[in-house]
């Protein structure tokens, strides 16, 4: 059994699943629009929360929140379920497929054998869509892949019931109502304002634009505090969060630029097009930072100190705060 489902590759799993599921239900939403309406772009550095011994740095809001904010702003009604047993979780999935409903679900990439080995860490918040079943194999639209793939029932169960942060608990979801006449322009303005407010005005040091300056102050001390080898792990981790599969480059800043261009065209607002070019420039600074961190990790940066990396971040932080404050002040 196979549902007629159009798979389109995207940069990021959550925004990709939103775009693909919405299009299936008659609402043509691009990946950048899903990011913008769902206020996906963010920044936070939390030195007191560590994963594998390294502090958390994130360029986005919490996993799952993009979809929640998107649904709310677009009046999309979703059915969300989690399960205590794999049997029930798989029976409910089969049941949905029988009814012709493609189902989004939370998986751990560690148990997805179709992904390249190098990417299979215990990341338990990977979104995929299952849209059919042939014998014991499930048909999967994994948004980060070019083509659909299959996974056998046994491995899908493992991926759906992974332990860690978070337990995937068989979580699955699908839209029950997708309005065809929703005011997309109002939704995107809401999403944009939310991001601008959070990035430009949160007074705490660990969230929003200010957190970039905070990270800068930490990076400046990494080598003194942790020693040369450990410090390399710290900056390596920042770059992984920024560039690894799923951000579309520069920690979602380029995808956000694409969103601003679509928003500009929809609203007939040329200022947003200019803003798109501004965030692209900031994204290029993020990439320069990643490039220099890569050199540092490889011991190919005799001309570079941790203070230099910190100065780059500090500059980016100031630019992002001004950028988002200027959007925050815009009237629509």
């Amino acid at each position, binding site marked *: 059994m196979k549902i007629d489902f159009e798979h389109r590759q995207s940069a990021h799993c959550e925004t990709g699943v939103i775009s693909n599921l919405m299009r299936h239900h008659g609402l043509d939403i691009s990946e950048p629009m899903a990011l913008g309406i769902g206020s996906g772009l963010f920044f936070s550095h939390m030195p007191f929360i560590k994963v594998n011994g390294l502090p958390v740095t994130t360029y986005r809001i919490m996993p799952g929140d993009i979809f929640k904010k998107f649904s709310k702003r677009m009046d999309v009604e979703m059915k969300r379920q989690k399960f205590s047993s794999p049997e029930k979780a798989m029976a409910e999935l089969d049941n949905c497929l029988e009814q012709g409903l493609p189902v989004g679900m939370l998986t751990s990439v560690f148990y997805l054998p179709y992904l390249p080995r*190098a990417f299979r860490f215990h990341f338990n918040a990977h979104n995929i869509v299952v849209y059919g079943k042939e014998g014991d194999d499930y048909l999967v639209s994994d948004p980060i892949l070019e083509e659909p793939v299959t996974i056998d029932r046994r491995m899908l169960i493992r991926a759906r019931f992974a332990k860690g942060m978070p337990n995937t608990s068989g979580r699955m979801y699908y839209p029950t109502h997708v309005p065809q006449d929703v005011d997309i322009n109002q939704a995107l303005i809401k999403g944009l304002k939310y991001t601008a407010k959070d990035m430009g005005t949160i007074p705490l040091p660990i969230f929003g634009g200010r957190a970039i300056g905070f990270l800068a102050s930490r990076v400046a001390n990494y080598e003194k505090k942790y020693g040369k080898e450990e410090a390399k792990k710290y900056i390596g*981790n920042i770059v992984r969060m920024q560039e690894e599969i799923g951000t579309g*480059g520069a920690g979602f800043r380029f995808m956000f630029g694409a969103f601003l261009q679509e928003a500009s065209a929809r609203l007939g607002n040329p200022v947003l097009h200019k803003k798109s070019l501004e965030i692209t420039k900031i994204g290029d600074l993020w990439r320069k930072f990643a490039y220099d961190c890569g050199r540092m990790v490889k011991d190919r940066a005799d001309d570079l100190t941790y203070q230099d990396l910190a100065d780059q971040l500090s500059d980016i932080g100031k630019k992002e705060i001004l950028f988002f404050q200027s959007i925050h002040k815009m009237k629509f």
Partner: protein
Amino acid sequence: MKKKDVPQDDENLFEGKFKVVKYAVDDDGNYGTVGSVGWEPENTVLNQAWEEINKKVEETKKKIKAGELSPLAYHMEKNIMDVGMLSQYMDISKRKVSKHLEPSGFNSLDSKTLEKYAEVFDISVDELKKTE
């Protein structure tokens, strides 16, 4: 980032399976997407993370040979788990898992617990007792 600047630094990390999507602008500043087989700094930090894991696995192997740890420690590190995560998968306390990481604790395990560990790592009980 300009479309023509989207990096194509292939270190076979994608195993030739696919290209990832990057957002980039054309010469007029208009956004679109371009496939990429990788970017050097990205490859560097990903390899760095794996080197760290492999280093831990090798250190653990030495400790097992020296009789300081049980083979369970090897499978835990190889599967990028820690005591906390393994205890969640086993549905037993962290204290118990720690005990099983010691050779004496591991050697006195009943067959049911051994089977459960093997199942968590998706290997046979025989493989569980080896470090390869």
